């Protein structure tokens, strides 16, 4: 915010600089020069592709995961993120938007995979009620993203690791992915 006073100060500062340069005996003086502006976030997400939920085979669960290595029911969601510097990615457990009233999942889990990379450090995961998928495959952790573009595959599951049915009806969830630039 540069008001008239500030402009005067800037002018004074500039004059001072030129003056000091030629007059070594002048008193030291200082001037505060204000700067302002909005720094944009260092990461920008693309438009997400929604995932598709289906029943998890014979398990009493609903899942959208095909696209993430090692899991294959329904379809994983996708989103790209471009970070000007490295960043830390975290994922939250799935949040139910609309589910049948009688559907009370014992466990929920989300997984984010960075591209098709399969090192453990390329997976982020969060769960409620304990992991549905093996913790050895998808540890509960974040991902350190490199600078540049990252394609993210996002899987989720809600239910229990037991054979059985789930109520008929519409299911709608979302999985929140957060990146914090370094």
């Amino acid at each position, binding site marked *: 915010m540069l008001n008239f006073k500030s402009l005067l100060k800037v002018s004074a500062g500039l004059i001072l600089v030129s003056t000091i340069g030629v007059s070594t005996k002048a008193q030291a003086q200082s001037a*505060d020069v204000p700067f302002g502006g909005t720094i944009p976030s260092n990461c920008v997400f693309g438009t997400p592709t929604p995932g598709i939920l289906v*029943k998890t085979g014979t398990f009493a669960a609903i899942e959208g995961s095909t696209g993430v290595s090692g899991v294959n029911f329904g379809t994983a969601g996708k989103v790209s993120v471009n970070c000007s510097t490295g960043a830390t990615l975290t994922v939250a457990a799935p949040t139910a938007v609309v589910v049948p009233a009688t559907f009370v999942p014992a466990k929920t889990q989300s997984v984010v995979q960075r591209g098709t990379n399969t090192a453990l450090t390329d997976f982020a995961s969060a769960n409620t009620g304990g992991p549905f998928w093996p913790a050895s495959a998808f540890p509960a952790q974040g991902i350190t993203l490199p600078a540049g573009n990252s394609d993210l595959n996002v899987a989720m599951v809600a239910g229990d690791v037991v054979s059985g049915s789930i109520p*008929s009806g519409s299911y*709608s969830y*979302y999985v929140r992915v957060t990146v914090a630039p370094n």
Partner: protein
Amino acid sequence: MQNIAFSVGVLLILTSIAPNAQAQSIDIPFSGTVSNSCSFSTPTPGTLIQSPNYAAIESNGISQGKGVQVSVNCGSGGKLTIDTPKAIQVPSNFNASTLQSIVKRGNGSTAEDIASASSGGTFAAVSTIATPTMILPAGNSDLNVGMIAGKTIPGLIPNGDYRYTVKVTIAPN
């Protein structure tokens, strides 16, 4: 020297004004519909012939493992149960002491993919499997249904019209 001090002062100001980069979040939506019902396709009626092995009437192709094709689609899988053949019309002098029906999922390559219901014994050329139930996975299953009725010994059966039905029931999971 004073020029340098001034420059340093400006740099410090810059540093203090620049805000930390903001964390960004995005919500990835997921949705789907689960239907626990099962639906059948309309079956094409099968053809009955004199059994080449027994004094029996049998559905054409059953000895070759073929049958009437019907597909079923279960949103979340189900349990199939097959009944023994039920006579609708047979010649009055036809004595069917053994009845057997069979259903295979796909090629029926494993015992889990075969169900058969029988009374009065089984026809060895058809199947010796006696379990009338089968677990169906979620999604589409192509089923082949066959039947045989008569005696488990070689022989001919009376001329005339033969009509049977085989009931297949699926209980959704």
